[in-house]
C-alpha cells in the first residue's frame, strides 16, 4: 500500500503531550490515530496520568489504554533542572505542545509559553484549561462532571417539572474539548505554513460546553428568562420521545412530524380508529395532546422489542431507533459495517474492542490503531536517537532520578 492511500495524514508531525485523565489524552490519541507522533510526558515522582491507577498495574488500565492509543511514553522528572532541559530540547524539534494541566503549572516548572517559544518560535501551544487561563476563577479545580453543571448543561438536561436537577453522570464537556482540540491544533499547523510562526491557543472547557448550548443562551437573552428543561419533547414533532419496550430496561425512540407519518403510524399499530380523530388531526392538534399520544405509543411499544419497533417504523419511513446499551453497540450492524471497532486480541489489560472514528476518508485505508507504549518505554530511544544524548549522560540521569 502506498503511503498516500492511508489515513496517516499527520505523519511527520511531532507533539509533546502533557496530558492527564480524559480530554487531553483523548485529543492526543485522535492526533496519533492520523499519524502524528505524540510523546506523552509523565513522571513517577512528578505525577502520572490519573487513569493509570484504574488497572491492576500502571500499564493495565483499560481506561488509560482507550484514551492513549498510539501514544509514546517518555518519563522525565520536570522538577529536576535536567528534566526541564530535556523538554526544551525536545521542544526544539517538535511542532506542538498539548497540555491540560491546571493553569500555571508548566510556567512554574520553567516550561511556560515564553520559554518554549524562545527555544522554538514555530511551536504551537494548545492548552485546555477548565475555566480558561485567566479570570477570577481560573484557579478552580474542574472535572468534566462539574463543568457540565457550571456551563448550564446539567440544569437543561432534565425532564420537565422535576423537583431536582438530574443531568448525566457523564463528562460531556471533556468530549467536546477533545474533539475541538485536534481541530484547533491542525488549524494552527495550517496557519504556520503561511506565517512561519507558532501560536498559543487556549480552549476553555466550560466555554466549549456553553458554545454547544448557544440556542438556549440566545433564548435566554432574547426572552429575558431561562429556558425550561425539555426532556424528550420536541417543539415540532408529536409524538416524540423515548418509550418503554418489552424486557428489562429496554427502550425505543420515535419521532413523528407530518400528518402522513401519523396516519401510517396509526395503521402500523392497528389503531385506525385514531386516524380520523380530530384530536390528533394536524400537528397543532397533536401538540395539545402530548401525554395522551405518549400513552398510545407506549401501549404499543411495551409489547414489543425495541428492534421490532425500529424495523417496523423505519421500513415505513418513520423515524425510530433502539436505545442502545453497551452490548447493543458492540453488535450494531451499522457500526460493524463501518468497521468501527478496532479489535485487540492481546493488550496488557486483556482482549478488547475499541471505537475508532466517526470519519471515513474516501479512497484511504484506515490504518490499524496501536496500543500505547508502556510507561517509560520510549524514554531511552527518544533521548538517544532523537535528542542525541550519549549513553553516559543517560545513565547519570537515571541515577539522579531525572528519568523516573
Amino acid at each position, binding site marked *: 500500500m502506498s503511503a498516500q492511500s492511508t489515513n496517516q*495524514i499527520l505523519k511527520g508531525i511531532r507533539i509533546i503531550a502533557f496530558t492527564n485523565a480524559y480530554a487531553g489524552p483523548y485529543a492526543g490519541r*485522535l492526533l496519533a490515530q492520523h499519524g502524528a507522533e505524540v510523546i506523552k510526558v509523565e513522571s513517577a515522582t512528578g505525577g502520572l496520568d490519573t487513569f493509570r491507577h484504574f488497572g491492576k498495574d500502571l500499564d493495565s488500565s483499560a481506561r488509560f489504554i482507550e484514551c492513549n492509543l498510539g501514544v509514546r511514553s517518555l518519563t522525565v522528572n520536570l522538577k529536576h533542572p535536567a528534566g526541564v532541559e530535556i523538554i526544551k530540547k525536545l521542544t526544539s524539534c517538535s511542532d506542538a505542545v498539548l497540555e491540560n494541566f491546571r493553569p500555571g503549572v508548566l510556567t512554574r516548572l520553567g516550561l511556560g509559553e515564553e520559554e518554549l517559544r524562545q527555544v522554538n518560535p514555530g511551536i504551537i501551544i494548545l492548552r485546555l484549561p477548565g475555566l*480558561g487561563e*485567566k479570570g477570577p476563577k481560573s484557579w478552580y*479545580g*474542574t*472535572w468534566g*462532571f*462539574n463543568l457540565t*453543571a*457550571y*456551563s*448550564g448543561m446539567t440544569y*437543561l438536561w432534565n425532564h420537565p417539572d422535576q423537583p*431536582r436537577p*438530574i*443531568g448525566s*453522570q457523564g463528562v460531556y464537556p471533556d468530549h467536546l474539548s477533545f*474533539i475541538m482540540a485536534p481541530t484547533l491544533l*491542525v*488549524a*494552527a499547523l*495550517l496557519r504556520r505554513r*503561511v506565517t512561519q510562526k507558532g501560536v*498559543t*491557543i*487556549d*480552549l*476553555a472547557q466550560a*466555554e466549549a460546553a456553553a458554545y*454547544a448550548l448557544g*440556542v438556549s*443562551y*440566545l433564548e*435566554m437573552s*432574547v*426572552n429575558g428568562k*431561562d429556558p425550561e428543561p*425539555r426532556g*424528550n419533547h*420536541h*417543539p415540532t414533532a408529536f409524538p416524540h420521545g*423515548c*418509550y418503554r419496550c418489552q424486557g428489562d430496561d429496554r*427502550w425505543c*425512540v420515535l419521532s413523528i412530524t407530518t400528518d402522513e407519518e401519523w396516519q401510517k403510524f396509526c395503521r402500523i399499530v392497528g389503531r385506525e380508529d385514531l386516524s380520523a380523530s380530530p384530536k390528533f388531526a394536524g400537528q397543532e392538534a397533536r401538540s395539545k395532546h402530548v401525554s395522551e399520544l405518549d400513552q398510545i405509543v407506549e401501549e404499543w411499544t411495551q409489547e414489543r422489542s425495541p428492534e421490532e419497533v425500529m424495523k417496523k417504523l*423505519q421500513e415505513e419511513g418513520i423515524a425510530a*431507533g433502539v436505545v*442502545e446499551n453497551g452490548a447493543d*453497540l458492540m453488535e450494531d*450492524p*451499522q*457500526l460493524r459495517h463501518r468497521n*468501527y471497532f478496532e479489535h485487540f486480541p492481546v493488550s496488557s*489489560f486483556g482482549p478488547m474492542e*475499541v471505537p475508532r472514528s*466517526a470519519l*471515513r*476518508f474516501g*479512497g484511504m485505508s484506515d490504518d490499524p490503531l496501536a496500543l500505547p507504549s508502556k510507561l517509560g518505554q520510549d524514554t531511552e530511544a527518544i533521548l538517544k536517537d532523537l535528542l542525541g544524548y550519549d549513553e553516559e549522560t543517560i545513565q547519570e540521569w537515571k541515577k539522579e532520578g531525572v528519568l523516573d
Partner: protein
Amino acid sequence: MARSLLSGYRVLDISSAKGAFCGKFLCDLGMEVIKVEPPGGDDLRREPPFAQGRSDGETSLSFAYLNAGKRGITLDLTCPAGRNLFLDLLQRVDVVLESSGPDYLEKLNLGYSVLTERQPKLILVSLSGFGQSGPYSHFKSPDIVTTAMSGLLYVSGDPELPPCMPPETQSYYYASLYAAYGVMLALWRREEQGKGVHIDTSIQASLAIHEHVAFTYSAEGKLVKRAGSQHQHVAPANLFRCQDGYIALFATHRHWPILLEIWEDHPPELDDPRWKTDTERRAHADWLNPLLESFTSRYKKEELAHLLQKRGVPGLPVNTPSDFQKDPHIQAREFFTSVTHPEIGEYQQPGVPFTVDGERPKPAAPAPTLGQHNEEVFGQELDLDQQALDHLASEGVI
C-alpha cells in the same frame, strides 16, 4: 490577527440542521463560510425557538445561532440553471459541506466525482445519521434517533425515569465538530499532497465513543446504566442541595479528608478509616449522599463552591444559563458577545470558546437574512450583473 487563524479558505455550506454547527465552527476558525439555501429558505429557519414568538423565517434562534458569521445565498440545486451556478462557484471554494443523506447529491448529478471535474482538489464533507452506506444508512435520523443509537441516551437521566435527551441537538453538534476535524486533516493532506477527498461522517459513530459505553462492555463486560449525576466510581460525586440551588461536588480519596475538615461537625462515624477508600464510599453513596446534603444545604451554592475550592475540593454550582452568563468569571473573560440582527434585534450569544495568543476571535456578523449576499457573491465571484440576477430570481433559481 487573531480572527484569521484560517483565513483564505472558503466553504460552501449546503447543509441544514445536521451540519450547521460544523459550518459555524469553521467560521469561528476564521474560514469564509457561504451558506447556500434553497430559495424557500433552510428548514432550520422554521425551527423554534423564535424571537418575539414570530415564525416568519428570520426569527428562528436556532438558525440565528448556528449560522452567525456566515454569508448567505439562495440557490435551487435541483434545476439545471441552479446546478450550473453551483458548479461555477466550486472553482472558488475549498470545502463543500452537506448533510442531505446518502445518494441525494448523486441523484442531482452532483456526486463527488462530478464535483471534482470542476474542482479537482475539492474536499466534500458529508454528514449523515449513519454514514453513506450500510444497513441503516437510509434510516430517518433526527437527533433523538442518533442519540439513542449511539448509547448516550441509555446512560442519561434518572434511573427511576425514562432515559433523558441532552439539551438542543447534541448529536448533530458533536458530529459537526468531528467533521470539522476531518476538514482540517483533509486540508493538511491537500497542502502536502495536492489532493481532495470525500469525508463520510456518521452522527451515530461520532457519539458512540462517548462515556466508554461500548468500550466498558467490551473490556469489562459491564453495562453502564443511568445514574442521574452520580459518578460511576467516585462518591461523593453528585448534585447536592444548597440554600439557593445545587452544587456539583466531586471528592476522591484525595479530597475526602479535606471535606471532613471543612465539615467540622460531621457525624463521627465518617471518621472510620474504611471511608477513606473510593470504592467503599461509592458502594454506600445512597447512605452518604443525604448525610452530606445536611451539610451542603447550610450554604449558598456560590459560597460553598468557593469555600471548597479554596481548600482544593472541586465543587461548582449547578448554574442556569443566566447564572452562567452573569458569573463574574465569565463576565471578566468577556465570553459573551453582543450581536445585532436586523429582525431579532440585539442579543448576547456565547462567543468563540478559545483564544489565539490571548485574544478571543470575535464573530463578525449575525446570521444572514434569506439571500442577503446573493448580489455580493454571484456578482463578485461569477461576474453576474443585476439584470442576470433579476432574471435568475424571477425564474426561482436564486
